[in-house]
């Protein structure tokens, strides 16, 4: 502080003055000597000023900061030195630099690769998914027609929305801070687009007199939508194809807010150098979202049809395989059970199964077995050598073949014995007895259960004849006319008996027996009975028999009629003529189940 003495007139110097001056000097020294010493030191220091490292280190950080705020000259000065230093450092210690940037680059590279792979797989998935479908074929046609890549056509048709570009724009200047694009999108003049977006916002804001905080939120043209998120210092413009969901807007807004927090100083001090905003790229890339139309759950119609056909084919194949297996099993079972067939080997020959072995000619035809079980005839063949089977079934079959029994005869086998049961003609029985011994495997034939129908009929005729009676009036030897009818009946029976006797090889005799009532004497009655028998015989001899021999005999009084049975009328049954069949001198006895004659 400058001190100013109170007003003192200027006077000439005297001795008193000298003494006084010395006193003042002494007083000055006493009062100001410490300050004087300091001043002298400072002057000496200023004269020999050398700024040491310590002094520089104290002011350097603040000095750099202050200078950087003023202009870029410090940056320009340091840039070549820094570049050279960095180059030298990389050259001398590459490992050090590599280790330093590895954490940053590694993460960035991983993220980039992951993103590229994801996009590639998504594209590949879509391409594959739609390659074989009906819709895919339609799109292939469209791609061929329009000359666009198939993948592009698929993306266009399946895209629900896709953020294709994101602009981070400085709000005040409209300058572009950063810009990212989805894969396959090309763009140019991002800075100009950024400016135009800002200008359009300004235009709209001015036109409708909206405040600075208000802004255009959305633009839409065709399939493209531009969503503009407003921040205090920056705006985020997203170019979206398709229809984006509302939640995407929240995400974009959240991203912008996050960027504002992270880069608040840089946004505020932005002077056109967007280098610092390169780090926003990962955030912006996160905004490049996409969503594709989910494929309908389930298979497309064509695949349904193909699957159905495939399943039907599989079902048909399985059914055929099962059926074939069942038929094969049944065929084996039937062949094994079939009498007269012996399978020795089964071989595959020329694409079909061939059975080798022996077969009785009377055994069933194996081709018939194929038909019965439904096995394909072309899939099987038979090569059998003939042989004679002696199994009971085959012996019976052979017996039937040889004997040719009528339907009323049952043939059965017991060991080597043929048993015939039922009824048959006398001629067939005679033939059986001759030919049975010629059947292989047969040593005996049993006819015990076989009824000779001719014998049976002969006996029935015999019974019928012997039941006939021709009655006479008392004392009359001549047959009354009323009995003529019976004569005709007797003639008919005798003719049939004659025929049956021929079939049976018999030569029976027919005895015409006359009877009288006990009335009268013995001689008269015998004579009367003879006349009666002869009378009937005469009438019967009107026809000729081939083997029957008729004879008449007067038997006198009928012994079966008891005497004294009551008057002339009571003896009417004894005045008669009866018949008896006699063969080889003795009458034939009636038998039930007559045995055939050997």
């Amino acid at each position, binding site marked *: 502080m400058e001190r100013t003495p109170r007003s003192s007139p200027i006077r000439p110097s005297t001795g008193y003055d000298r003494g006084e001056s010395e006193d003042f000097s002494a007083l000055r020294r006493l009062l100001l000597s410490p300050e004087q010493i300091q001043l002298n030191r400072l002057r000496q220091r200023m004269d020999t000023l050398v700024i040491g490292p310590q002094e520089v280190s104290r002011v350097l950080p603040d000095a750099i900061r202050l200078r950087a705020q003023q202009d*870029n000259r410090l940056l320009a000065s340091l840039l070549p030195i820094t570049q050279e230093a960095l180059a030298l450092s990389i050259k001398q210690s590459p490992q050090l630099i590599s280790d330093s940037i590895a954490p940053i680059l590694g993460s960035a590279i991983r993220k980039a690769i992951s993103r590229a792979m994801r996009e590639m797989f998504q594209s590949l998935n879509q391409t594959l998914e739609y390659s074989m479908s009906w819709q895919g074929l339609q799109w292939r046609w469209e791609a061929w027609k329009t000359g666009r890549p198939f993948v592009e056509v698929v993306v266009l048709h399946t895209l629900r929305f896709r953020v294709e570009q994101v602009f981070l724009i*400085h709000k005040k200047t*409209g300058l572009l801070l950063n810009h990212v694009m989805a894969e396959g999108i090309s763009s140019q003049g991002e*800075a100009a687009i950024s*400016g*135009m977006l800002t200008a359009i916002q300004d235009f709209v804001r001015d036109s409708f007199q909206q405040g600075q905080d208000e802004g255009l939120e959305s633009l839409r043209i065709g399939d493209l939508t531009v969503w503009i998120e407003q921040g205090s210092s920056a705006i985020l413009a997203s170019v979206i194809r398709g229809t984006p969901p509302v939640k995407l807007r929240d995400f974009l807004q959240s991203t912008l807010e996050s960027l504002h927090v992270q880069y608040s100083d840089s946004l505020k001090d932005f*002077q*056109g*150098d*967007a280098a610092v905003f390169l780090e926003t790229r990962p955030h912006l890339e996160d905004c490049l979202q996409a969503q594709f139309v989910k494929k309908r759950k389930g298979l497309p119609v064509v695949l349904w049809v193909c699957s159905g056909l495939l399943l039907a084919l599989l079902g048909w194949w399985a059914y055929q395989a099962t059926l074939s297996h069942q038929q094969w099993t049944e065929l084996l079972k039937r062949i094994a059970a079939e009498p007269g067939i012996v399978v020795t080997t089964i071989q595959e020959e020329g694409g079909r199964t061939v059975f080798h072995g022996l077969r009785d000619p009377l055994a069933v035809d194996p081709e018939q077995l194929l038909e019965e079980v439904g096995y394909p005839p072309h899939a099987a063949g038979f090569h059998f050598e003939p042989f004679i089977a002696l199994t009971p079934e085959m012996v019976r079959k052979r017996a039937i073949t040889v004997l040719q029994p009528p339907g009323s005869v049952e043939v059965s086998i017991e060991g080597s014995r043929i048993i015939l049961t039922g009824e048959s003609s006398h001629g067939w029985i005679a033939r059986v007895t001759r030919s049975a011994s010629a059947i292989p495997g047969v040593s005996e034939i049993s006819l015990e259960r076989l009824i000779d129908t001719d014998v049976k009929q002969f006996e029935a005729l015999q019974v019928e004849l012997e039941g006939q009676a021709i009655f006479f009036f008392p004392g009359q030897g001549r047959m009354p006319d009323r009995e003529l009818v019976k004569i005709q009946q007797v003639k008919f029976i005798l003719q049939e008996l004659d025929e049956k006797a021929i079939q049976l090889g018999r030569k029976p005799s027919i005895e015409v027996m006359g009877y009288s009532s006990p009335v009268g004497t013995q001689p008269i009655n015998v004579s009367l009975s003879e006349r009666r028998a002869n009378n009937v015989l005469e009438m019967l001899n009107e026809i000729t028999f081939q083997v029957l021999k008729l004879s008449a005999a007067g038997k006198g009084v009928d012994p079966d009629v008891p005497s004294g049975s009551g008057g002339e009328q009571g003896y009417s049954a004894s005045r008669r003529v009866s018949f008896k069949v006699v063969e080889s001198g003795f009458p034939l006895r009636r038998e039930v189940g007559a045995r055939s004659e050997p």
Partner: protein
Amino acid sequence: MIQKKICMLGGFAVGKTSLVKRLISGMFSEKYLTTVGVKIDQKSLSVCGQDLLLVLWDLYGDDDFQKVRASYLQGASGYILVIDGTRKETVEVAGKLHELARKTIGPVPFVLLLNKHDLVNEWVVESPMVSDLSDQACLVSMVSAKTGEGVEAAFSALSEAMLKS
């Protein structure tokens, strides 16, 4: 790369758009000028060893029908004031636009271009008429959008001034 927003200012038909076209082939149609009132292009160049991206806001010429929107000037680092040497009235318009720019974005660098130098014989604008503007401009240049004379140099000068400011 450093970006700078610059505005082309001037009266109606002074040749702003032609000057921009001399420099670059833009991607937007000129119809934006009459609709939105601005057409924006970008131009990369290197000034003093520094790569620079100029974002050119070509504002619609101020006339009775449409006024320059002040909001379009926001954030500009510099501007180019264009006068048609053959029309006196464009000097007055340039003065008004200069005032608008000063008021809106402050004292940022600008260059004053007297266009249509190829028609110099028809010029009616003389130096004293633009002395006020000339004193404040970092460059005053006579240019011709038709021949390209002085155009690139003018943009370079403005770029350099913006980098230094």
